[in-house]
């Protein structure tokens, strides 16, 4: 059995973290869980540790990009064969995770994205998120030549190769759309499968209109700085 690490980035998620961990344990009993506490000032870290989960607490709030990358570096050091990212806000149902891992193995793929939009799965999200997704869909088609429908989904499975690349390269504060372009530019194969996601029930989303525009411009600059993939 290959070693699997579930990376759970969490910032101020004391309301959700226990449910997320229980959900993972129920559906992926063999996997190791790593909570990366991104400088939370609430009880996120003690709650996770109390459940016996390996928890790395960043010394200050570094953003989702650095938090997930810390997880990749840990996985790389400990030589995990596969990684799965499940956000700490309880929106990614662990019951869908085995299908992501299966798609990764059947592949060939280095990253499998759990997509909310391939099929009507009940998830709609805010109009802002849908607009942002449409924007990155076109950017990635134009720049990388691959049509990824859900560019902002953080529900993903990664191969050892993808983990090695992402452990070494920091992709900015908002890594989801950028990692697609970057992995593609490194010759990695990316797949996307439909998943069901929950809507955020507790806690607050960080998305506001002005922030979204700022976010899109920043990520666009970052994506355009990557080289085009070599054909193979």
């Amino acid at each position, binding site marked *: 059995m290959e070693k699997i690490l579930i990376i759970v980035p969490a910032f101020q998620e004391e309301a959700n973290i226990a449910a997320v961990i229980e959900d993972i344990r129920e559906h992926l009993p063999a996997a190791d869980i790593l909570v990366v506490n991104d400088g939370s000032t609430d009880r996120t870290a003690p709650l996770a540790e109390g459940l016996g989960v390996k928890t790395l607490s960043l*010394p200050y709030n570094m953003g989702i990009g650095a938090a997930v990358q810390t997880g990749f*570096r840990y996985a790389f050091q400990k030589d995990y064969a596969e990684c799965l990212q499940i956000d700490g806000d309880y929106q990614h149902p662990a019951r869908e995770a085995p299908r992501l891992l299966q798609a990764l193995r059947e592949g060939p793929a280095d990253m499998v994205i759990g997509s909310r939009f391939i099929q009507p799965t009940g998830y709609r999200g805010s109009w802002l998120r849908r607009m942002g997704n449409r924007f990155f869909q076109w950017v990635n088609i134009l720049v990388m030549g691959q049509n990824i429908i859900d560019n902002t989904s953080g529900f993903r499975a990664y191969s050892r190769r993808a983990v090695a690349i992402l452990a070494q390269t*920091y992709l900015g504060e908002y890594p989801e759309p950028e990692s697609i372009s970057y992995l593609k530019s490194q010759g990695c194969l990316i797949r996307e499968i439909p998943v069901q996601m929950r809507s955020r029930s507790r806690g607050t989303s960080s998305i506001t209109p002005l922030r979204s525009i700022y976010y899109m411009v920043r990520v666009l600059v970052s994506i355009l700085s990557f080289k085009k993939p070599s054909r193979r």
Partner: protein
Amino acid sequence: MNFLILKVSTFFLSAFLLIWVISLVRRRLLIEEYSFLWICIAAIFLTLSIFHPIIDQVAYWLGIEYGPSALFLFLNVVTLIILIHVSIQLSDYKSKKRILAQEIVLLRDQVQELSKQLIRHESSNL
């Protein structure tokens, strides 16, 4: 008369800038990398305040009719270059700070793992 006041005041301002930079270096509040830059700028101001016809002459060469305009142009360009340079440095520090923070977290985890192993080892030896 007004002209003399201007000359004297610009001279003192430039001299003050130079002395301030030197005192910052002496108190080690400014590393020499930056002090060199600021000493150069202060020295240029001091020279211009004493030999201000230089400004008019340079303006004339550049085809600028009004001398102080050339001075403002020069100042703006220098300020912009310094700001970009500071942004580059800041970006560098930010990414190094991130790497250091991640290293600390991973090392702290290793230390905890090792101390747990040590405790287990010691208790099994007792």
